[in-house]
């Protein structure tokens, strides 16, 4: 078998050049021809059977044959008519000389680019910029007149909040980058872009702040992105899974957000943001485990409230992972570990339940997950039906029928609520998923099993990295100063340093000792 592998390996080396050629094939490498009609013919054959591609032929100043190629719906037709066709279709006497200079510099169009490669022409047409070709000119002109329908900026659906910006990202990359730029006006905000996907040619942009970000991080992200060879990118998750450090981890190592303010706060901390066309969810890298538990709202309210809510979240994070397993473990192995009165009332309620605790717990948790999933997918009008069925059938009827004990329902309900307390939906799902192996461990090995599970999870978390940043930073490795954003949410005047793990080139983010106090009052006068 080893010999076979060796043979195959050698074969692929030969094939490698072929593979690379494949990508070139999809992008014709030829230059535009000198002949106008030849060029038109080539483009027509490229866009064969594409009814949405318009070939508008006309006479430039009454005598030169010209062709405007654009895609209906992607280009601004009114602007084409007003600023391109009407000045160019004037009488011959008004013809300016030379013609190409007029087009390049005197036409009232936002952006005119000379293109001489066929591939660039196609790229331009596909992204909505009409191409102007005319007789006697070997280059084409790409006119920046793209305009297509897009959603208005709306409130982020998956990351709501009481206080803070109400704007969310949308599907259009331009609008998203403009939202970043609107918040961070400094030219230090750099946005590099590339196209990924052999068929979709999706625009992907990497945003970062020059001087804050670790240069090697941007290089690493770029190389990882360039490595992606895929037919299409429809969501940022495609990219996330292809560039993350450990693909076989239940924990996300790249965070996604649909809030420009969250993206910007990450930028200011020296992280990079990857924006993907076609989805409102942008990616943030590198992150640590604690980024998943921090919400924008923590910073938009008084620091004591923020700290309180953060601790509440830590507590319920533990509950969402462990509560059902603790319940099962105690009920099947460690009966002496609960107060007598509690044990007696639990024993009384479990008296008529026909299943062992572990089966009951698994069944209820799975039902809860099904209910949640059904609620997410259903149209809004039917959604209420699910909640009624869930509350009545699962909550009451099953207890009344004696199939499930009432304490179990309470445990499942608390666990469900606890898992929704995670500000990032993905992180909540991670914990909900890990709950099941934990329950199995609890049902087979009791508290011992739970401890084993916790140890395994912690070891895994310690080994994880997100673009080289330890996943549990700044807790492990411990950076005492940076716990200001983990153990509590320090008041803003104490948040004076940036996290060292994301970039240590520019550590201080504000002047020292800005805490308001009576002495400072006269200082400013």
């Amino acid at each position, binding site marked *: 078998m080893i010999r076979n592998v060796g043979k195959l390996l050698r074969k*692929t080396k030969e094939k490698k050049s072929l593979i690379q050629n*494949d990508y070139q094939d999809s992008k014709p490498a030829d230059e535009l021809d000198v002949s106008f009609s030849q060029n038109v013919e080539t483009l027509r054959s490229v866009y064969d059977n594409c009814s949405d591609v318009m070939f508008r032929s006309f006479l430039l100043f009454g005598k030169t044959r010209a062709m405007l190629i654009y895609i209906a719906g992607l280009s601004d037709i009114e602007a084409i008519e007003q600023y391109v066709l009407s000045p160019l279709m004037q009488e011959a006497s008004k013809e300016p000389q030379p013609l190409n200079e007029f087009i390049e510099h005197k036409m009232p169009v936002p952006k005119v680019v000379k293109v001489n490669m066929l591939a660039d022409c196609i790229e331009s047409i596909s992204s909505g910029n009409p191409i102007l070709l005319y007789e006697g000119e070997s280059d084409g002109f790409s006119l920046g007149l793209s305009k297509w329908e897009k959603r208005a900026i709306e409130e982020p659906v998956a990351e709501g909040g009481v206080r803070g910006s109400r704007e969310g990202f949308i599907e259009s990359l331009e609008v998203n980058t403009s939202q970043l730029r609107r918040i961070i006006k400094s030219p230090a905000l750099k946005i590099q872009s590339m196209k990924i996907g052999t068929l979709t040619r999706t625009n992907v942009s990497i945003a970062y702040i020059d001087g804050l970000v670790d240069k090697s991080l941007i290089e690493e992200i770029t190389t990882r992105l360039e490595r992606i060879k895929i*037919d299409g990118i429809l969501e940022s998750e495609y990219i996330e899974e292809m560039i993350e450090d450990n693909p076989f981890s239940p924990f996300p190592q790249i965070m996604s957000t649909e809030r420009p303010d969250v993206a910007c706060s990450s930028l200011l901390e020296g992280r990079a943001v990857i924006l993907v066309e076609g989805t409102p969810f942008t990616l943030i890298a590198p992150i640590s485990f604690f980024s998943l538990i921090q919400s924008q709202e923590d910073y938009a309210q008084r620091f004591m409230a923020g700290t309180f809510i953060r601790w509440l979240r830590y507590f319920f994070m533990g509950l969402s992972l462990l509560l059902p397993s603790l319940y099962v473990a105690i009920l*099947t*192995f460690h009966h*002496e570990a609960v107060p007598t009165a509690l044990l*007696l009332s639990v024993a009384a309620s*479990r008296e008529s339940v026909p299943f062992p605790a572990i089966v009951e717990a698994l069944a209820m948790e799975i039902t809860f997950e099904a209910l949640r999933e059904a609620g997410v997918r259903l149209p809004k009008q039917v959604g209420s039906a699910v909640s009624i069925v869930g509350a009545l059938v699962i909550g009451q009827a099953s207890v*009344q029928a004696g199939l499930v004990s009432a304490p179990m329902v309470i445990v499942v309900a608390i666990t469900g609520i606890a898992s929704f307390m995670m500000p990032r939906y993905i992180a909540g799902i991670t914990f909900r998923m890990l709950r099941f192996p934990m329950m199995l461990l609890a049902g087979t090995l009791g508290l011992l099993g739970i401890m084993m599970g916790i140890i395994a999870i912690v070891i895994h978390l310690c080994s994880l990295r997100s673009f080289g940043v330890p996943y549990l930073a700044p807790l492990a490795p411990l950076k005492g100063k940076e716990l200001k954003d983990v153990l509590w949410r320090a008041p803003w005047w104490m948040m004076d340093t940036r996290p060292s793990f994301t970039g240590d080139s520019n550590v201080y983010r504000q002047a020292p000792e800005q805490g308001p106090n009576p002495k400072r009052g006269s200082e400013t006068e």
Partner: protein
Amino acid sequence: MNNSWRQTRILWKVKRRHFTKSVLLLLGICGAAPFLSGCWDRTEITDLAIVTAAAIDKKDSNQIELSVQVFIPSSISSGGGQGGTSQEGGGVTTLVRSEKGSNISDALSKLQSKLPRKIFWGHCKVFVFGEKLAKEGIQEQLDFLLRHPQPREKANMYVSKGKAKPILESLPPLENYSGEVLRELSDLHIGMLVTLQDLDEMLTGKPQAAALPVVKILPPGKGQKKLQGIPYIVGTAVLKKDKMTGTMTEKETRGLLWLRDEMESYTVTFQPKGVKGEISLNPVTAQVKIIPQIINEKWKVLVKVKTEGAVIQNGTNLNLSSPKSLKAAERAYQKDIEKRIEMAFLHTQDKKADILGLGKDFYRKYPKQFNQIENHWNDIFAKMEVEIDVVAHIRRQGYINKPAGLSENEVKDK
């Protein structure tokens, strides 16, 4: 164009197959491990007979009788539904089963055959020894309770007046079961509270004497069913080594609590000099220090008491807000406590059993001297002198200053 992608894919497959195989194997082994090894001590809560109290009686011909009070889960729940708890009127929430045997474990194994569920001691917080057994010695039974992993060391220990089994059989109207009644009563610290661990410490320690609360059934009131009497604490049993040698009354027990510094809730009622009526006090704080002394070969114990009380009833005509009358009242308070402690001390000396644990105190302070007399410690204890030094203050007077219902003239201000 995707043809070449497919080719690489085939190649990867071959490369990965071996890796995947080993990973799957490893996962299989690890995944199966908990299912193969686990579960051996898994017990559903519905398969447990939760023992809430146990009683051990002496039977004739060297046999003991073990009685357990087992909780009936279905009694406090009507199978879910409306969640109605059917415990009004003292519904039966427990059942009592007993079996004879040569010792506890023997009786237990026989008892298990009478109960469909596995006997679980983990929540048994009350153990009652029958009087007869206590008089003959409890050491043998104690060994089981301490050795077996399930019984709690924090369980309360009692000696019953007469047989112990009826204590378990009584159906208290207020609590769910009689074991709970005893536990709650003990938590009030009216009588002694001795846990299994305390008992073990007392018996293995230097003094080799122990005290256990004595319980008795309070007869049911008129119109109540026969079993509705509750057990209550009537005094203290004195154990020398592991055998019960005598009892102390409730009043003596209270003095004993003073000496052991376990006084928590009590009411002291006394009569100040030269006035009619009595004053009752509740303690706010009470600190008792026992200082062993050997002066000129004479063994002596100094009891230092520092207590502060709050007036709860003033039946005299003293106005306690005037310093003079307060002083008088405090003096009487002090005297009363002195008297109580002295009486309790004399009573324990009578029994020739050092249930105060003085032997331990002496051993700590004078180890050499103690080792010399260790064998006749009880005699020395019985003859020991006691000096009591009480500092008692009245700190609070309640909502009113002057005695209620008395006119200005009647109140003695000075």
